[in-house]
């Protein structure tokens, strides 16, 4: 029958193409503008240099679950995976990510500083090779907030001065920290307070004061859309999204850097790869995380390179010609108002707090 013919034909065709493509690797990332920046800074130069075809899989948002399932099924199809630091630590703990030795597997800085020293504190897990520093922060509509623009993260909780809707991520991470911070808890004490049931109640009580004014969102693209529509007057999202909204889309939006929560995004290599694939993945990592490459990525998106030696090399945006330095979360004037996330705390308390948070949301 025709079906069999089609099948045989397709089979033959893909076998042939399979032979033609000599080497292929699957890199998992987030998609959208972020993948585009990686494509320009890493993938294209790497393909040009080695002839390896790179396939993009936009699955980073569910990477941990899928990687765990792949590992269990003994069928890991990914070669390099882009994840945030928290999930990377979890993957490392579960033995799903390979341990990286920064001295032998990563390139040293041009001046000879070892990779371990160059990355410094950014190496938060032994399996994780940081790539960028990003932050979750607030943007606001300049035309909808009245005459005095908000300057502090606590203005989000000030519905009297800034009436209107605001958007927040519907997860406890970051949200509960901000609530405590604006309820008078000192930055250094936040996680100690959040560990206790009373502290958790305190954070939720603070959030109760704005609950009716919040649109809860689940992905990084929601807030920019809501801001562009004028649906919210301020909202939380990643700083790169806000940069695109302000500088590329020319929307009447500005940023509050205050209380920005910094986080890292980077690569891991899954365990269970064949030796050839693992060697290929390591080779890619070595190439893609060197000083110049990390600086190159900042030409396409406003996330700070994770290497100290890359910072001086950050130049202008490749298309807009804007000096990128001041738009980085790591720029000195932005950095001093930042807030550092405690990964260990969230590894322990995420499930518990999430249950509480969702129960609170649903009420």
């Amino acid at each position: 029958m025709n079906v069999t013919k089609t099948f045989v034909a397709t089979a033959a065709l893909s076998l042939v193409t399979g032979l033609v493509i000599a080497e292929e690797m699957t890199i998992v990332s987030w998609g959208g503008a972020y993948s585009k920046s990686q494509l320009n800074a890493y993938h294209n130069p790497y393909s040009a240099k080695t002839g390896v075809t790179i396939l993009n899989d936009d699955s980073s948002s569910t990477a941990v679950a899928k990687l765990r399932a792949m590992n269990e099924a003994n069928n890991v199809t990914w070669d390099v995976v882009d994840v945030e630091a928290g999930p990377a630590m979890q993957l490392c703990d579960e033995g799903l990510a390979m341990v990286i030795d920064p001295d032998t597997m990563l390139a040293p800085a041009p001046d000879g500083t070892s990779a371990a020293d160059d990355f410094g504190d950014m190496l938060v897990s032994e399996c994780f090779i940081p790539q960028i520093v990003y932050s979750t922060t607030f943007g606001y509509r300049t035309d909808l907030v009245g005459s005095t623009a908000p300057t502090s993260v606590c203005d989000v909780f000030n519905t009297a001065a800034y009436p209107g809707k605001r958007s927040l991520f519907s997860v406890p991470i970051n949200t509960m920290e901000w609530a405590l911070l604006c309820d008078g808890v000192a930055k250094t004490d936040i996680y100690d307070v959040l560990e206790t049931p009373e502290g958790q109640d305190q954070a939720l009580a603070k959030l109760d004061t704005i609950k009716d004014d919040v649109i809860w969102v689940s992905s990084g693209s929601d807030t920019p859309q809501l801001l562009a529509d004028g649906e919210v007057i301020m909202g939380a999202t990643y700083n790169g999204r806000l940069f695109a909204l302000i500088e590329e889309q020319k929307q009447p939006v500005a940023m509050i850097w205050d209380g920005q929560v910094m986080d890292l995004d980077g690569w891991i290599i899954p365990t269970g790869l064949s030796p050839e694939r693992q060697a290929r993945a390591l080779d890619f990592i070595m190439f893609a995380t060197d000083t110049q490459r990390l600086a190159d990525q900042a030409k396409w998106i406003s996330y700070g390179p994770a290497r100290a030696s890359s910072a001086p090399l950050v130049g202008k945006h490749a298309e807009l010609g804007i000096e990128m330095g001041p738009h980085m979360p790591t720029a000195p004037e932005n950095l001093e108002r930042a807030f550092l996330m405690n990964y260990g705390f969230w590894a322990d308390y995420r499930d518990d707090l999430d249950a509480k948070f969702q129960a609170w949301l649903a009420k």
Partner: protein
Amino acid sequence: MAALTVISRKPLSFVFCSMAILGAFAGLLIGMALNVAPLGLICGAVLSVGLSFVVLSVMDNEKIARWGLLAFWSVCGLFSFGLAGGLAGILWGWFFGWFVFWLFEGRYRARLQPYLSPKQVLWHFSFRVICGAIFTYLITPIIVVMPLSFNSQDFFTFTPEMLQFDPAGYSLKHYKDFLNNNEWQRSFKNSLMIAPIATIISVCLGTLAAIGLSQSHVPFKRLIMALLISPMIVPLIISATGMFFFYASVGNFLENSLGIDKNFVGYVKVVLAHSVLGIPFVIITVTATLVGFDNSLTRAAANMGADPITTFFKVQMPLILPGVISGGLFAFITSFDEVVVIMFVGSASQKTLPWQMFTGLREQISPTILAVATILVVFSIVLLATLELLRRRSEKLRGLSPI
């Protein structure tokens, strides 16, 4: 039926009353927008009755009167609310002219049974208005995305420029993005490859099984039916995770033991997963067609010496073809619009259109997905038209004349 009803002119009092209500309603809407609701109501009613009087009693020439109304209302709209108002005025003027003569000449009775009471006639038309509202509810979201796909900005928002019909507010860039972007192109091709093959598998297996199920003595018929329909009733997220493990081991077996190319195995996995999801629709539609199937036809064919295969292809198949096709279309769209299972079972090289749309929506809201949707709607219209033509053809085949 239609020709039986003789229509006659209706009394002017009835026409004026109806027109007053219509005018009052329209006037109220405009009046509310301008914050002078009571004034709008009265003005609307008066203006409407006045115009009706002029066209019905003074002019008494339908053609000229209707053109006149069109011109009057569009000029009114143009001067009061600008270009958009002018357009609305043309539509309203056309409707006004049509409606006033429809009432006056009694045309509304033309297609109805002559014995209907006025109340029944009123209900008849109110019912149609209700249905019209429901159809509007069904269609509006699709109509709304079409202009947005020509947005010159990267958001799902009607910009002020778009609302003023300023050409600067419109652009084809999202269509260009779809046509030039490799990711979109690859996923579109994947969808076009995976969906038909999955459909063929579900249709073949599904039709066979439906024929088996429709025989009179099938043991455990209910249980079998339940099992075959199960892919439809199990929530997708459960199916997706469950199938992931199964297809991963199928993949391992094909790749490692049989040495088949990785990419090809990837497609096989996705195609199989999607054909499973499509099967319930084929079973349901084909079983339904077979309920009305006259089994003596196959016996007659066998009696005249046809073997079972000939009987199937020459007698049974042509008659159940509409069911098979509509089941196949359901299966096709299931695969073509499936986003949960593919994200688990597929890998990057099998990325389909819905998957690409999903990441597009999550990672970067861009009207490119609306451009794709618009293209697909046009594509669906073509498909549906084909289905309709096929249906008419099969009616002819069966000797049923169209009513």
